[in-house]
């Protein structure tokens, strides 16, 4: 393991597997009556969020607290950055508190990598621009493995805005490393250049894309993509690419449906699908805690001691 978790693209497959296995132990902890362990007592984590986030931030904060880590939340709206402090200075200031982990969410890609170059703390990428969201991919992989027993050989479809989704990018790299057969389903405008190098197939028609699929990951469709000209309306998007029960019927009978949240019911996913027996969306949230605990634990042991 490296001291940082910056992306999945450069992570070793063995490390990914180690994180998933460790997460299983932490999931056991989370099912106990007393859910807190002293593993990282005396360590300090800073949740440095430059973008609004409820789920990821809550999940990290709770994971840190379950491990007895001291937690500082640093929510920085972009407006106060505009007032003048450079990211370099922000990081140097935070580091002076003597912290062990920086959990960073930023609207610009590559910011975790930049921080890792200037900081001795363990840097965990909690989502950078349109680049990656590694812990989301890890919790998704954990969930799939938990549900299906294995990942290798599964047919997994990712549906939606691949171009602007760091979740999709991390999942593609992660699932590819774990041996899945990946299909992307989206209109041409939402397929990023060159991604065919990393997936098995690309479909623009959801009905044929879903056929015989074991796992479907739906992605959040952001309203602002409409004004960007990536599609014409959310209604039309739903009509052509929305995940409905009827379409789900084309998949394997034991298909599971995933979503990183927050969902837009009636845009990328029909309510009936989100609430169906196929949906593992809430399980994903629980697993997120276990996976983030595992990441914190493993990175802490990888960090050079003073």
């Amino acid at each position, binding site marked *: 393991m490296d001291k940082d978790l910056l992306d999945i*693209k450069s992570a070793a497959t063995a490390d990914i597997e180690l994180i998933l296995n460790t997460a299983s132990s932490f999931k056991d902890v989370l099912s106990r009556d007393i859910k807190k362990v002293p593993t990282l007592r005396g360590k300090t984590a800073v949740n440095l969020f430059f973008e609004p986030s409820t789920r990821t931030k809550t999940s990290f904060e709770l994971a840190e607290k379950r491990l007895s880590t001291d937690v500082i939340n640093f929510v920085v709206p972009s407006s106060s950055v505009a007032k003048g402090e*450079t*990211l*370099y200075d922000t990081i140097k200031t935070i580091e002076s508190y003597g912290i062990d982990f920086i959990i960073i969410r*930023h609207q*610009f*890609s*590559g*910011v975790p*990598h*930049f921080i890792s170059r200037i900081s001795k703390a363990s840097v965990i990428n909690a989502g*950078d*621009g*349109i*680049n*990656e969201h590694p812990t989301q991919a890890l919790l998704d992989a954990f969930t799939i493995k938990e549900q299906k027993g294995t990942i290798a050989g599964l047919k997994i479809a990712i549906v939606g805005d691949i171009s602007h989704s*760091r979740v999709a*990018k991390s999942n593609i790299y992660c699932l590819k490393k774990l041996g899945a057969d990946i299909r992307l389903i989206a209109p041409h405008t939402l397929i*990023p*250049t*060159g*991604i065919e*190098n990393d997936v098995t197939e690309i479909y623009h028609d959801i009905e044929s894309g879903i056929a015989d699929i074991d796992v479907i990951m739906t992605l959040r469709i952001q309203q602002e993509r409409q004004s960007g000209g990536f599609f014409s309306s959310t209604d039309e998007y739903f009509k052509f690419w929305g995940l409905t029960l009827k379409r789900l019927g084309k998949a394997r009978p034991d298909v599971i449906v995933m979503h990183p949240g927050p969902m837009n019911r009636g845009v990328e996913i029909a309510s009936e699908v989100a609430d169906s027996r196929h949906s593992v969306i809430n399980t994903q949230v629980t697993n997120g805690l276990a996976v983030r605990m595992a990441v914190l634990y493993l990175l802490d042991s990888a960090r050079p001691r003073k």
Partner: protein
Amino acid sequence: MDLIIRRGHIVDPSQGIDFIGSIYIENGLIVKIENTGTTVEPGITRVLDASGLYVFPGLVDMHAHLREPGFEYKETIKSGTSAAVKGGFTSVCCMPNTKPVNDNETVAEFIVKKALSEGFCNVFPIGAITKRQEGVELAEMGMMKDAGCVAFSDDGRPVTDSLLMRRALEYSKVFSSPIISHAEDLSLSNNGVMNEGYLSTTLGLRGIPAASEVIAIKRDIELAALTGGRLHIAHCSTAGGVRAIREAKRDGIYVTAETCPHYFHLTEAETGGYNTAAKVNPPLRTKKDVEAVREGLIDGTIDVIATDHAPHHRDDKLCEFDRAAFGISGFETAFSLSLALVKGGLLTLNQLIEKMTIRPAQILGLSKGSLREGVEADIVIADLNKDFIVDPEQFVSKGKNTPFNGWRLSGMPVITICKGKVKYHLNNSLMAEGI
């Protein structure tokens, strides 16, 4: 006689000179150039022995940023021209994106005067095409021309309005000044920060497609054809752009073009790891584009090698990739990087020197880039076999931003003379004969 440079290998494409000989300088002018033995009047004349060295006309850079007025923390006319002469340049043209923008005679005069009093070499300002580079109204080209501007460009903020670009190409004809186009379709670039392709997807960075440059070059070529105006394409970086310029020239449309060393040496791969030193506009492209740019230099489609010297402060690059400034500090590596094309057998030395001296001078209508008798003695003496490793900390320029850090290069200027005066010398050993 004030100075004689003797026994140097003189290459001056403007006169087809390629021989070992001597140059005589008096009152800052070249008075004689000959390939016979040197007659030295003992005790009166200073003599510079250039044995084993090459002697070229001082290099002419038609695309640089000196940042003054307004961004003196990045570079000044003094620091920039000091870096220029170290790089072998004796004439540099500075783009108008200063603060205030060089869109009027007052700013142009300021630059010219400042360069005369503090500069190490000739500085020729390039005026803005439109007021404040806003792309709305034409700037006062005639007055700027009178104040010393040699071309017009809204560099970095291309004129998006095709009608206005047409007018600029028409109106500038009266002043015989080229319009230099930073060819980019801004809407297609869509705030991109690197070349669009698999790598930009992998890095999660917004891409600028090659088509953004190609479309703009093609538009401007059509407007040049329509108007008969003088169009010069800045920093060509794409295979499609080279092809479009080649076709235009074949069709008899008057267009000239430049590229920069980073476009014939580097690919987008340099951007990996979010390396802000490699963030430049137009962005570094693919291997195929690098090959095409080289091909364009070889067959003459690309007339000029310019630096696009774009110095930035450390803080402008030590930050988020999206926020980092575009640009590469180029004066102090351009000659050696270009010479690599000669060493690699792609260009002859004569072709290279032509593209860095007389061609840009011709395009701008300057009596520079030549060792003709009677012109100002702007001369560079270079050691083509001297190796060095690029170390930005050794740059004279305030801008240490280079993706060539650590490159081993061969060949460098050792003495630069501007208007008959030595403005740079690598060390004192060559000056033993009394300079």
